[in-house]
């Protein structure tokens, strides 16, 4: 092996400048997935259902110690009656408190109110939660990206050519384009785990690209002797 080969072999891990577009993973994921990806919305629905079930269970458990032996007997007989007469309507006491109170009437109304709020909540908040998640990712990454962009834009570059880093600019624009497309997909199809991962991935790629660019600018500047630093310009990312 000659010197150039050795040099490139030693630095090959520092030459990972390229990033594939998110479509490659989208295509791969479609072809390789064995089990259907459950969307965040579905998970939220499952969570809401579990919460509903748990609060129903809690409601029943809370009532038992309050009830007197007489009342318990009454409850048992009422339960039996309802079970025989309307087996399908067993959960009715949970959702419709006006029908057949199980124990003293002043205690039955409170848990029902809780259940009502749980039932109403998911429908209104799922989309909001997804939107908030996207917004949070955006805000957090944007803060870091903007800081990095400002650093780069304020760093003088001591070369005669303006387009020394055009490759980086082009890649950054491409990533911005991909991100825009991804966000429009999220708006159209809703958020799922795969899209969320891609959104984070694109932002990470943008950060890596800016980091690599900063390193390259420093290298170019360091390799330019002080006496040759007559021309300087700033990158407009």
């Amino acid at each position, binding site marked *: 092996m000659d010197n150039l080969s050795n*040099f490139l072999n030693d630095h090959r891990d520092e030459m990972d*400048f*390229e990033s*594939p*577009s998110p479509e490659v993973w989208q295509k791969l*994921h479609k072809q*390789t997935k064995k089990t259907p990806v459950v969307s965040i919305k579905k998970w939220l629905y499952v969570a809401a259902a579990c919460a509903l079930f748990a609060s129903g269970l809690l409601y029943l458990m809370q009532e038992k110690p309050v009830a007197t032996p007489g009342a318990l007997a009454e409850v048992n007989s009422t339960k039996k009656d309802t079970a025989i007469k309307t087996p399908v309507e067993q959960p009715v006491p949970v959702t419709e408190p006006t029908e057949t109170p199980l124990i003293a009437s002043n205690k039955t109304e409170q848990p029902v109110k809780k259940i009502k709020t749980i039932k109403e909540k998911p429908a209104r908040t799922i989309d909001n939660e997804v939107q908030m998640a996207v917004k949070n990712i955006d805000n957090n990454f944007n803060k870091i990206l903007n800081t990095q962009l400002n650093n780069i834009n304020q760093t003088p570059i001591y070369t*005669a050519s303006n387009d020394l880093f055009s490759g980086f600019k082009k890649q950054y624009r491409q990533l911005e384009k991909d991100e825009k497309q991804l966000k429009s997909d999220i708006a159209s199809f809703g958020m799922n785990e795969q899209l969320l*991962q891609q959104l984070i991935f694109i932002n990470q790629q943008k950060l890596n690209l800016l980091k690599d660019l900063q390193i390259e600018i420093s290298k*170019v500047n360091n390799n330019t002797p002080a006496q040759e630093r007559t021309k300087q310009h700033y990158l407009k990312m």
Partner: protein
Amino acid sequence: MKAQTDISISVINQAKNGDSVACGQLYHHFSKSMFSICMRMAGDRALAEDILHDAFITVFKNLPQLKQPEAVAGWIRRIVVNECIRQTSKQIKMYEWNSEAADIEDEKDTDWYKNISLARIHEAIKELPDGCRQVFVLYTMEGLTHKNISEAIGVSEGTSKSQYHRAKTLLKENIINYLKVANG
């Protein structure tokens, strides 16, 4: 290799069991470095993305057979390089090259590349003509010998050597010309 150390074995094992989230993590962990290989070998973004896609199909398909999860980086790299050879060898055309001139060039070889940014060298490699580009990348960055290369792409060992010298000369010319333009 840095990528080897910072992906957890549990992620690899989950991916081996077909966990799609772990497969995604594995892909995103290696995609940048593997795609850079594809870009250097293919010289073209669309073809490089096709190669990366096909290589990762092979990776996911054969992952359950991976016996040493800690060697996953090298294993994926070999699959990617093989896929690169398979898909780019269709477009490889070898041109005649004066190997005597190449030997003289070798003697004059200095450290001209040491002050050049790696990004610029990467760009210049992508701009090399088909044929000598693949030989150059396989020899310098993937550690294949000329004998390995000749067997892999179906040329003689002498052709592989001469194409390597051709690539080296063209790379140097490209970078020197670029620097002349860049520095006015």
